[in-house]
């Protein structure tokens, strides 16, 4: 047990809960706040959406999170806002008013979560006014499943809520005085169960060395399922989400390449501006990765360390030639990303190491990046397969071709034979046909719940065909732009 000090809807709270406690359990079982619902306990339905406020430069910024898979201990010093807190002294929040006005609830079970997603959208719009595009709405609400309404009235509520007068309630900017926050013991050796929150990489490396059995947690968006779905104990946790060195994005040179060092703890949401500017295809993929609640929490380092064959970012990073930096008390080392993935869920990370940073080189000399993800549902779904292609065209000849796939092997992997078929070739049907053939040497995919082996093989080949058409038949639409760029 350890104490968490935080604000709940403006009111200071101190709770003693075990490290594996989620925010949802904290709310429903320890604080008797049952407005926040459990729909799936896996971060997929959004019924448990809450807002977490973090104060930067005096103003509170709220982001949405799935309470079911967010560690309660990460609330330390933060402001948790739930559906119970939105209406102040009987005044409904515009998100609530608009939902009633537009008949946005039927059974009502998903409604608190939807209201909370609307609340974060509303506060975001208030703080950074900008047009409410369909894409923005989709990003804000794609992680909230509703089985009754079909979403039309919810869309109307989102579009109309800003017309409703709103006075920011007093609790909105409330922060917890520093004196209320205990510093977490970094020395974990004293206790059996702990939730350590190191602030520096040095501290993190020390913890990693002294407690190699402890699990690392950043967003918890995958790790927490071990607790909620597989009932595994998560009693020793090292939280990397407050390690300063892991939270930065820096422009840098590495081996004559210009690029960016991205801290392993940088969230997808935080990556968006950089990717929008330099890797639009990657940014588009981010919009289809998980939901807003997940993107607010999940990190690039987590996606790599997780080493799932169907993680969304690794194939793109492989195509871009990214490198990872691993740190321990003895120092740092650097690896090409393809050398990091060893086998199914096995990586080169040693027991005392952490991923500290990822280097992504800039696209140079008119290099192109294409990222194509195939899944059953466009939003908030896991890839059946994902192809990432980087190349440049020099006088109708393909150069520096790097192709990587997820969902085609036990790890995210480059398609070396297909790359070879295209490298130095002119853009001809024959060359691409050879690349399609080569894919059969590169991969023997498997059948699972997301797709059959036959489909994966065929679809991967069709993505090569799409690449060919996008380079040769430039006057044609060869993909649907809601899915791909």
């Amino acid at each position, binding site marked *: 047990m350890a104490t968490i000090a935080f604000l709940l809807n403006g009111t200071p709270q101190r709770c003693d809960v075990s490290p594996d406690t989620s925010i949802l359990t904290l709310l*429903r079982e320890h604080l008797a706040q*049952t*407005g926040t*619902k459990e*729909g*799936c306990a*896996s971060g*997929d339905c959004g019924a448990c959406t809450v807002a977490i406020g973090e104060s930067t430069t005096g103003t509170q910024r709220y982001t949405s999170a799935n309470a079911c898979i967010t560690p309660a201990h990460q609330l330390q010093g933060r402001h948790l806002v739930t*559906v*119970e807190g939105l*209406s102040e002294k009987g*005044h*409904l929040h515009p998100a609530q*008013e608009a*939902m*009633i*006005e537009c*008949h946005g*609830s*039927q*059974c*009502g079970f*998903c*409604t*608190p979560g939807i209201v909370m997603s609307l609340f974060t959208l509303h506060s975001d719009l208030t703080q950074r006014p900008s047009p409410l595009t369909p894409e923005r709405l989709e990003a804000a609400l*794609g992680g*909230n499943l*509703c*089985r009754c*309404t*079909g*979403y*039309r009235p*919810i*869309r*109307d509520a989102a*579009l*109309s809520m800003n017309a*409703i007068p709103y*006075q920011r309630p007093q609790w909105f900017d409330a922060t917890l005085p520093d004196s209320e926050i205990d510093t977490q013991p970094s020395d974990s050796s004293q206790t059996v169960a702990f939730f350590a929150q190191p602030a520096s990489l040095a501290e993190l490396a020390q913890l990693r060395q002294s407690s190699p059995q402890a699990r690392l947690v950043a967003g918890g968006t995958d790790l927490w399922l071990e607790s909620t*779905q597989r*009932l595994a104990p998560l009693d020793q946790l090292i939280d990397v989400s407050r390690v300063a060195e892991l939270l930065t994005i820096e422009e840098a040179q590495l081996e004559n390449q210009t690029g960016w060092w991205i801290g392993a703890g940088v969230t997808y949401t935080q990556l968006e501006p950089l990717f929008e500017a330099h890797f639009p295809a990657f940014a588009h993929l981010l919009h289809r990765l998980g939901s807003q609640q997940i993107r607010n929490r999940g990190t690039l380092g987590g996606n790599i360390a997780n080493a799932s064959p169907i993680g969304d970012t690794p194939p793109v990073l492989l195509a871009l030639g990214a490198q990872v930096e691993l740190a321990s008390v003895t120092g740092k080392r650097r690896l090409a990303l393809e050398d990091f993935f060893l086998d199914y869920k096995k990586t080169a990370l040693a027991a005392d190491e952490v991923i500290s940073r990822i280097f992504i080189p800039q696209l140079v000399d008119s290099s192109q990046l294409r990222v194509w993800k195939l899944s*059953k*549902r*466009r*939003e*908030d779904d896991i890839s059946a397969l994902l192809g990432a292609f980087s190349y440049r065209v020099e006088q109708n000849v393909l150069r520096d071709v790097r192709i990587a796939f997820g969902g085609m092997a036990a790890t995210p992997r480059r398609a070396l034979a297909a790359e070879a078929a295209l490298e130095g070739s002119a853009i001809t049907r024959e060359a691409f046909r050879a690349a399609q053939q080569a894919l059969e040497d590169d991969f023997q995919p498997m059948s*699972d*719940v997301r*797709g059959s082996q*036959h*489909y994966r093989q065929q*679809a991967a080949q*069709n993505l090569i065909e799409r690449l060919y058409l996008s380079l040769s038949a430039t006057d*044609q*639409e*060869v*993909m*649907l732009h809601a899915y*791909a760029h």
Partner: protein
Amino acid sequence: MRTLTKLDGDSSRARRELHDQIQGAGPLARHTVDSTGQRQAGSASFHESAEKHVTGKAAYIDDLAVPADALHVALGLSPVAHGTLTQLDLNKVKEAPGVVDVITFHEVPGHTDIGPVFPGDPIFVDQEISYAGQCLFAVAATSLQVARRAVKLATISIDEQPASLDPVAATERGEFVRPTHVQTRGDWQQALDQADQIIEGELFVGGQEHFYLEGQACVVHPTEDEGVIVYTSNQHPSETQKLVAEVLDIPFHAVTVEVRRMGGGFGGKETQASPWACIAAIIARRTGKTVRLRLPRSDDMHATGKRHPFHNRYRLAIDAEGVIQGGEITVIGDCGYSPDLSDAIVDRAMFHADNAYSLGDAQVVGHRAKTHTASNTAFRGFGGPQGMMIIEAAMDDIARQVGEDPLTVRKRNFYRDGREVTHYGQQVDQRQLLHTLVETLESDSEYWVRRKAVSDFNATSPVIKRGLALTPVKFGISFTAQHLNQAGALLHVYTDGSVMINHGGTEMGQGLHTKICQVVARELGLDLDKVRITATRTDKVPNTSPTAASSGADLNGMAARDAAGKLRERLFDFAAGHYSEGLDREGMRLEDGMLVAGFGESERTIPWGELVQTAYLNRVSLSEKGFYATPLIHYDRSIGQGRPFYYYAFGAAVAEVSVDTLSGEYQVDRVDILHDVGDSLNPAIDIGQVEGGFIQGMGWLTSEELKWNDKGVLVSDGPATYKIPTFGDLPPVFNVALLEGHPNSMASLYRSKAVGEPPFMLGICVWSALRDALSSLTDYAISPHLDTPATPERVMLAANAIRKRVL
């Protein structure tokens, strides 16, 4: 800004003002304000719980406070689909700290078979295991987490046997949960023998997980007698009352079941909410403690049945114009391991194998195949959608064969004068409405202009193909089990004039309680705020039917109306005799919160509150019960003929899609819907049902894919792998309207029509539009085979297959 207060007149005025404000600022919120101001039946009142929903105050089962010593139950489920349980060692489970009770088949005091209509559903496995997810034992502990972890300590030995998972093979072997049923009209064999052309096809129609956001849940308190009070998320409290009493071996009156609201039902809580209540009740009686049982999502998906997958075939005789002369249709429902409701579900698939089209001289055969999966169950449409799919597939196929637009072929085949009787002998009333509705939609949606645009686009776009389809719905309204078509209501008026109504229906989000309050408000001439509804309870209205078959408002609304009408007449009689000025009994009415007698200058009014108070002081009963039984309906199963439906509800929808024929990805670009609800009881709620039903139907046919491994274990067992539509699946253009000016031709509740299920099948137009887009790869010469759900995988493989056929 407005104050959140209790629902009173000020509050509703303020809401109307706010509404106008929103309307002024943006045209997006639908026009929903009631012009009469009282929000009675016919007006677009808000859901009675809307404020509670948005503030988190609406309580669901898992939100109910329980005593500190309450027990929490987790279930031990079978990991294999078929076999014999040879050993169940629960010693370690019992010894785990925090575990209070563990029960199996042998601890059940009364009935062990809890089959709802027919036997076949053991509460726990005794020896034979029939599906993966079947319940072996239950553990009660001090917390849910303790109970769930203790479940894993069990030692389970099973002599595993091969699982039967293919309903077609099961049908060939004659493995059924119920006998095959046949409906025949005319000489169908002769129609085929003498046909100009014969067309045939087959289709696999996938099942569907309900994915109610609130999973199965109940709380059971032991009472001071030998009984229990059950709080449950449940569409059929009376059946749960019966089953709980039977497993406990106590009289029904010892069991009270209460349902305030469900976080979604969709049919999944009609029969399949009862087992959990039965298990919790046994433990509550054994321990004397309050027991909470809530299924975690994955357990819920493994343990409970789904929409039936179907394998359907058709063989039809058509003339040169593509008009069906006769033929045969066979539907095979994959029922899972037990009958549950499958008899009625496969029947309903058969009743809808014609959809809106006359089959001529036809035979429809329905098999109920037995397989080793969870027992498939009710789901919005109840087999109707699966039946309709085969004839809609046939319509597209016929169109390609005769070289006509599918809409033209559909319209030619509609029921019409001279072709007005179904294959089960019911005359289709209001058949002209179907033509009117489709022609209106065809014109409003600019079908033919867009057809040309789609064809033009496709001619120059080899990879991206667009598709367009208009499909109709004709859906029969009534339970096909005649005795279920009854309902009761209980009305109390208190001495302050406030009114309480209870009825046998349950609220699952469909707005039933709102509509019932509106009915009572209209009958008594009161503002809606004067009428309140409370939880559905078996001790208030007994022996109720499930809230199912779209019948909730039709049946219970009539019962509530009956109660209100009787009370009103009693008050009129009293007023006519009581007031000294001699009120005219003939023209008495209740309006605007007053009793009004006489007309013009002789009009006299008595405020409702005063009337009620006076009646009370004069010892007039202010409580009344109501009852309703649907007239006219009958069906003779021995000959497969009758009039099973009181009336039909109609609708139609147009979808336009874009398909990437290389990747199989697609998007729904635009949908237009026109739907028939007779005279709407509440246009806002009805629109909500139409839109929600459509999207749910679209999900069934597109992204929602149930997958089992080859051993029969469900592998799509959570929202990470089972994908219901999400926000971005809402079509960017979504025009939805209710057909106006066509009241129900039958004497239904204010001439309204049921709306729960019919719109679900509007989603078929999306699937048909996908086929249309694929067909364009062959210049509309070939009708592509496209089983459902039409996932991007299926669409891509269908595109590959159809391309090969042309090359």
